């Protein structure tokens, strides 16, 4: 059956949305550009460039983001209209990434995601299309854009229709009409879509009623092309229903409407319907004539022709006329197209389910259904080959078998679809229950974890802890942290599925994050006797990104690399790549291992939820199998991606790419000059009390270039060796009553060209003099107010850095 109207209309979602209402020059110009998209996409594309420049430096960040995102959206829609979906996708992704950083506008975000869904539809990404349309529906609802919501619903309906799930498709088309009926073009498309699905369900009377409603709208809008198409649909429906008089009338009207003008190109499809109608009335000569014309005018006509139906009709016509050779040719052509159509429906169905929930058992079920279909068509094909080899004498018999086979294979498809429908309904319920379950479970697991992790932290904070016991407690804590990470992963998946995941960017130290990752995983790697190498030479320092999410991705990739590697090494590298054309930079973080690798045909599967390459591997390597799905989702939410190149048995290389936005420039330790004031100093404080740390962190925030805390003198000595410390502030209790220890610290500070201040509560004069003798020259006594402490600390910058001298 013919589905032509929907795709034409739905690629574009402009409409009288909220943006036009604001009377400002930008909004007016944007509205004009949007209207241009349908008429002249190339011009709309040029307009979007001009629009993007309509910001000034006085504009608020919010305003700039709005202007740029609106311009990007128009650009993307124009690119889609120009059939450049890949470029559109790039524009959409970068616009979405930019919006995440400011106050999100749900309406505009919704439009962008709807456009992305359109791209996914064009490029055959059923899962992405479904997810985006659902997300767009939700966001457009928040933005009060019912028209956009109606488009999203129709898109979802169309996906179901492609999968052969016409009942669900009808549900969505119906909702689309309920939610917004003020746009005649949209309403027409919805009714026509309804008609097509009803036709497939053989509900011919209902289908005719739906097409008639569409026809009324087409007549009102005076659109001959659409009237012709709808009349053709009516004719086809009435022909199948056996109502030949109205069928002939509709067909005649369709022919009348398609003489000349743009509608002429659809005449091939009309001849096809005419042939079918004639065949149904046993007017075989007319039918043969019409089907010939259908095939001859199909050459060079619109691509979206129901060729499969043509061949089926032709086969039946020539069989009736006893022209066996011709009949057989058409039967063969029909079978080929029918196979393709069924494969498409089956893969769309499978993708639909994947998009909703990837439980292995459901997968199995789909595969079983697919296998049933494959067996059925293989049986049929064998029979066909046999037929071709046999003598012409038996052709007529075989034709009959062929005919029955068509029936049978159609019935099998119908049964399979019915079964898929039942599964779909069950899955929808399961999905809702699952999301609820995950949220509750996550909450419930957090409570006992609070006990485990809380107490291990308390125990480990005690300084007089036996080293063996400390090791054991650290193991408990490590296990607890892993468990918490798993719960967080599960919760993230639930959030991703309900579209609740948010990216929050701020300035962060990327280099430090990567160094942390190396430190954390070195221990793990050592126990497996594999090496960790890293190349952070070209790594940007401060960047603007979501630190929590970035850490999650990198830790996941590192954890996987170590998990799946038994010998050799894991390499972490980070660098940036400049794109001169768009003047943008891409951040590249690469984790390469020499592990077991991934078979070439399973490479994409590992990014699906709950998947590892095989169940056996899952059992051997543990984990929820959620990590990579989360990594990819997070990376995409940040405007980037995670990809993999792998050789089985030789290792895998995972690459995270993100749009790079650099933070404020920083001075590396190499070219660091000694700080000349406290405000420029990198401060290290020795403070054993965690609450004291909390208070000092808050008080010192913004007073120094950076502040870090350690709890023991030994840690301070280690930190001084890096040469990145300008000033050490020691809380007296950390030094105990040990003048020699304090002296060693003061000497280490002098060596590292760092200032040293000792903060001490009421020091006894004789002890104090011992400290001074050991080289502790700057002592501030407590209690003291924070501003006074800061001014005391600033005083030492008037003096040269203490040299290593012992007064005695």
């Amino acid at each position, binding site marked *: 059956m013919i589905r032509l109207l929907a795709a034409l209309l739905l690629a574009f979602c402009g409409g009288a949305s909220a943006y036009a209402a604001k009377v400002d020059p930008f909004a007016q110009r944007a509205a004009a550009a949007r209207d241009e998209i349908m008429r002249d996409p190339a011009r709309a594309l040029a307009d979007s460039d001009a629009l993007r420049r309509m910001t000034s430096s006085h504009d608020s960040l919010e305003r700039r983001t709005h202007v740029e995102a609106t311009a990007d959206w128009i650009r993307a829609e124009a690119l889609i209209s120009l059939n450049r979906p890949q470029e559109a996708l790039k524009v959409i992704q970068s616009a979405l990434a930019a919006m995440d950083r400011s106050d999100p506008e749900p309406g505009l975000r919704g439009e962008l995601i709807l456009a992305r869904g359109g791209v996914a539809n064009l490029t055959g990404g059923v899962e992405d299309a479904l997810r985006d349309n659902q997300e767009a529906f939700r966001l457009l609802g928040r933005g009060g854009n019912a028209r956009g919501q109606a488009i999203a619903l129709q898109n979802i309906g169309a996906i179901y229709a492609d999968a052969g799930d016409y009942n669900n498709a009808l549900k969505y088309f119906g909702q689309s009409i309920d939610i917004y009926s003020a746009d005649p073009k949209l309403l027409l498309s919805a009714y026509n879509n309804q008609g097509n699905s009803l036709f497939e369900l053989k509900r011919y009377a209902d289908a005719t009623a739906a097409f008639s409603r569409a026809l009324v709208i087409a007549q009102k809008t005076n659109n001959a092309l659409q009237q012709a198409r709808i009349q053709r649909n009516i004719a086809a429906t009435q022909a199948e229903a056996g109502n030949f008089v109205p069928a002939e009338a509709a067909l005649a009207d369709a022919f009348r409407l398609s003489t000349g003008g743009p509608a002429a190109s659809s005449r091939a499809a009309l001849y096809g319907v005419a042939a079918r109608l004639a065949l149904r009335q046993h007017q075989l000569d007319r039918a043969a004539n019409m089907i010939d014309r259908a095939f001859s005018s199909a050459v060079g006509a619109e691509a979206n022709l129901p060729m499969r139906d043509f061949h089926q009709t032709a086969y039946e016509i020539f069989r009736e006329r006893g022209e066996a050779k011709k009949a057989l040719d058409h039967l063969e052509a029909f079978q080929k197209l029918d196979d393709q159509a069924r494969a498409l429906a089956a893969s769309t169905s499978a993708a639909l389910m994947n998009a909703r929930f990837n439980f292995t058992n459901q997968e199995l079920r789909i595969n079983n259904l697919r296998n049933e279909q494959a067996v059925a068509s293989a049986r049929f094909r064998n029979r066909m080959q046999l037929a071709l080899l046999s003598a012409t004498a038996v052709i007529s018999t075989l034709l009959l078998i062929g005919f029955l086979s068509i029936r049978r294979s159609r019935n099998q498809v119908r049964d399979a679809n019915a079964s898929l429908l039942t599964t779909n309904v069950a899955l929808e319920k399961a999905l809702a229950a699952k999301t609820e379950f995950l949220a509750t479970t996550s909450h419930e697991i957090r409570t006992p974890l609070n006990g485990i*992790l809380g107490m291990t932290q308390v125990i480990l904070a005690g300084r007089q802890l036996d080293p063996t016991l400390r090791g054991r407690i650290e193991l408990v804590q490590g296990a607890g942290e892993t468990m918490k990470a798993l719960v967080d992963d599960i919760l993230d998946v639930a959030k991703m599925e309900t579209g609740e995941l948010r990216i929050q960017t701020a300035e962060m130290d990327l280099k430090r994050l990567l160094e942390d990752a190396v430190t954390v995983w070195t221990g793990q790697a050592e126990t497996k006797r594999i090496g960790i190498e890293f190349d952070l030479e070209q790594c940007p320092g401060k960047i603007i990104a979501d630190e929590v999410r970035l850490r999650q991705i990198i830790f996941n990739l590192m954890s996987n690399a170590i998990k799946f590697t038994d010998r050799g090494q894991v390499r972490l590298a980070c660098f940036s790549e400049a794109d001169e054309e768009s003047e943008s930079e891409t951040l590249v973080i690469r984790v390469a291992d020499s592990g077991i690798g991934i078979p070439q045909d399973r490479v994409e599967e590992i990014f699906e939820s709950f998947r590892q390459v095989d169940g056996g591997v899952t059992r051997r390597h543990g984990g929820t199998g959620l990590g990579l799905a989360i990594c990819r989702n997070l990376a995409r939410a940040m405007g980037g991606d995670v990809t993999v190149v792998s050789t089985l048995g030789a290792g895998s290389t995972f690459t995270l790419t993100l749009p790079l936005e650099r933070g404020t420039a920083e001075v590396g330790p190499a070219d660091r000059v000694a700080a000349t004031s406290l405000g420029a100093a990198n401060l290290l404080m020795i403070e054993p009390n965690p609450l004291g740390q*909390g208070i000092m962190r808050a008080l010192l925030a913004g007073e120094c270039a950076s502040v870090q805390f350690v709890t023991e003198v030994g840690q301070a000595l280690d930190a001084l060796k890096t040469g990145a410390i300008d000033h050490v502030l020691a809380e007296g209790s950390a030094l105990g009553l040990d003048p020699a220890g304090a002296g060693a610290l003061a000497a280490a500070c002098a060596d590292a060209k760092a200032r040293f201040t000792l903060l001490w509560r009421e020091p006894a004069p004789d002890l104090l003099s011992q400290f001074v003798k050991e080289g502790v020259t700057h002592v501030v006594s407590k209690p003291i107010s924070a501003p006074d402490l800061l001014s005391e600390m600033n005083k030492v910058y008037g003096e040269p850095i203490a040299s290593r001298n012992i007064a005695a």
Partner: protein
Amino acid sequence: MNILFVEDDAMNRRVVRDMLTVAGATMDEAHDAESGLQMIDERQYDIVLMDLRMPGMDGLTAIKHIRARTDEKASVPVIVVTADTALDICRDCIDQGADEVILKPVAMNKLFDAIGRLIARGNSRMMLN
């Protein structure tokens, strides 16, 4: 320093109590929001830690009650301690008058940083002891 923890779960109370012990601090405990409000009535606190989901009155309502007071206790700093990970939970708590939000499982450094920030904010001339 006087700290009050309003929390129905005994284990959670114990965890936070022991964490504060590490820092040399102590706390009072309330098993539910109603008795927590009563204790605020009777005593002077520098910091109130508040769970959200409790039988009877929930934590957000309790915060509303505190903020609706007419005396100076209306501005006591409140830190929400919750296992709720809903998307907008932080914003909701801050909207209702909470000063800080900490997620369970409680990380000790996050707890002390939050307390430290509140102490530092309230007393820029506070004496360091």
